[in-house]
């Protein structure tokens, strides 16, 4: 991992299109400003991986499972 020390107001540039600026330091929090092309998605890291894995699981569903669920829910509703 590349480790760089930066101060508030300073930035780093990744490739030719991405710039990350340290906007503010406040206690244990850092505020970052990120400039990147709109097709690049930017997310907070911790939860991203878990959401990606859950999306992959969700994509495995099939019609039979959906039908079974709908039927059970109808019984619950009655």
């Amino acid at each position, binding site marked *: 991992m590349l480790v760089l020390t930066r101060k508030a107001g300073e930035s780093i540039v990744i490739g030719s299109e991405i710039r990350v600026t340290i906007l503010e330091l406040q206690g244990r929090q850092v505020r970052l400003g990120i400039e990147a092309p*709109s097709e690049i998605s930017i997310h907070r890291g911790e939860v991203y991986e878990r959401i990606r894995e859950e999306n992959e699981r969700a994509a495995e569903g099939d019609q039979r499972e959906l039908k079974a*669920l*709908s039927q059970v829910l109808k019984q619950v509703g009655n």
Partner: protein
Amino acid sequence: MSESDKLTLQNDKFSEVTIERENVLSFPQGLPGFEHLRDYGLVETDEEVPFLRLQSLDEPRLGFVIVNPMLLWPEYNPDIGQEDLQGLGITQTEHLAIYCIVTLSTDPRQVTANLRGPICINTESMQAKQMILVDERYHIKHSIMEASSREA
């Protein structure tokens, strides 16, 4: 509506679906894990209420089941960042629609909805994004059966 306004797709895990062009959503960044797929159709059928399908237009084999979380969790009120909404071009909440992805299972009791990664749609532009909440009240797996028996 003419036939050219509709798309018919064959998905081997679900029955054939017909998607009307006005129900086509665009995810400019795709979904996490499926970043390369941008266009999806929103499919609603009577038999599957309250669930809808989010069917990829680029990859007919890929589809998700989604649900309006307010139907099962009426108190659902995710803290979605202003920047995230602005990125979708949403300035008024009446143009915001929220759905959650459902993870199916052969056992209905194991079926869950992802309340941590809601899909937000700008209903005017039909641009959409899966948000990744920092809001810790919500998790990736919320039981649908539990929610619906509580509601009943």
